[in-house]
């Protein structure tokens, strides 16, 4: 599981990650808790968290977002 913490663009982040089909990871939205979004992932969760960070930063709004993407053990 990974946790993406961001108060902004939560719907966009969820859509972005759950819609990702790059083949290396899949992200399934689990729940929302305040600023935290929880996603079930396939594969190594640390790598998945890194991938989520990359995906978010690659969007037009990602560069200005202050967020955190971490693996939840």
């Amino acid at each position, binding site marked *: 599981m990974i946790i993406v913490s961001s108060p*902004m663009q939560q719907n966009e982040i969820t859509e972005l990650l759950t819609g990702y089909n790059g083949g290396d990871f899949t992200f399934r939205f689990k729940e929302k808790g305040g*600023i935290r979004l929880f996603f079930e992932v396939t594969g190594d969760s640390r790598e998945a968290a890194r991938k989520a960070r990359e995906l978010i930063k690659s969007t*037009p*709004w990602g*560069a*200005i*977002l*202050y967020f*955190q993407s971490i693996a939840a053990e």
Partner: protein
Amino acid sequence: MNGLVGFLERSIVPIAAKIGSQKHLVAIRDAFIGLMPVTMAGSFAVLLNVFLRDLPNEWWGAGNGVTATFAWLIGMNGHVWQGSLAIFAILFALSLGYNIAKAYDVDPLSGALVSLSAFIMGLPAVATIGEEAGWGFFNFAAHFGARGLFTVLLIGFLSVIIFCKFMQWNITIKMPESVPPAVSKAFAAIIPGAVALYVAALVYYLFGFFTGGESLIEWIIETIQAPLMGLSQGYGAVLVIVLLVHLFWFFGLHGANIMQAILQPLYGAAGIENANAFEMGAEIPFQWVAGSFDAFVWPGGSGATLLLLVAILVFSKRSDYKMVGKLGIGPGVFNINEPVMFGLPVVLNPLLLVPFVLAPVAMATIAYAATMLGWVDPVVVPITWVMPVGISGFLATAGDWRSIILSLVNVAVGLIIYIPFVIAANSPKLGGGDAQAEQE
């Protein structure tokens, strides 16, 4: 709070995203960031000379043992400075040209060369020595340092844009496929490069023609750069920046990424000018620079969160707060505050909004007043932002011991601001139920 976030997402995020992803602003920001290896080496050289030459000379007089012993290293530091901070505008011209060309997806090396050439071609190069006038004498101190920055931002920028547009319009010399790529790229850039440089030359020529031979770079420095940098020295500007950056951070927007392209040409350039003036033994031109924020305003990162962590470790009775305090204090000493910003969280936490903004505002006010009143020397050495509070100010002010007192005062003020809010968070109404359970 949800309504406010929704409003910000609809109104602020699209504007901030446009600013943050605007390719020219991103190129300017990346041009500054790209120079960090060189500027940090230059800063280190200036800093070493403070402790090997300037302070020993002040304490023990000229010819002291420390300075004499390390004369070789002092000389080497001078070389490093001369090849870094002292030629900041030249390095920036290269970096800016490279990054703009990269943003337009054309050959970055050619872009860097066009930008550098467009800057250098306009520099006054005639000097009078005694009764002899000659060509080929650049005024190193007047134009090569940060003083040339705005000329690069205007003329270098213009020339690279022209270069990139011509490349994109494909107005180039095409070579057969058998020609090696390096040769092919160089030939392709000939027409766009020549047009860009001739346009820059025309600007310089026309300016000189209509002003009776005045130098464009001097005019830019006097008419654009100096007033803008002067504005940056006002308390209002410092206050607005501290407020805006912290509001951005609080609402989950990357304050630095949004504002860096605007702040670096002003406060970053002022910091480089101060370092150059200090190394040359000249009068320090600016009282408040980029390093002043790092040294005195945000110990522990944005919001001075190191003090929040200290307040938590001492006064909090909440197990979740204490856990974050223990995990966050190590990185916090080095001004890394993601663990506390997202762990507590501070981001979008209404209880912590007031101290998160108020503490840095109060600290900026105190540091600004102390610097302007001459109680503490201005920052003259750019220091990396991970330097711990106290040490950062001491090094940045070239060893002014009063900076340590200022840092301690600011730490005390920041703590006083945070403590009531940390104690308030112990209340069961605010989620501090475990605190009550412990008491019972």
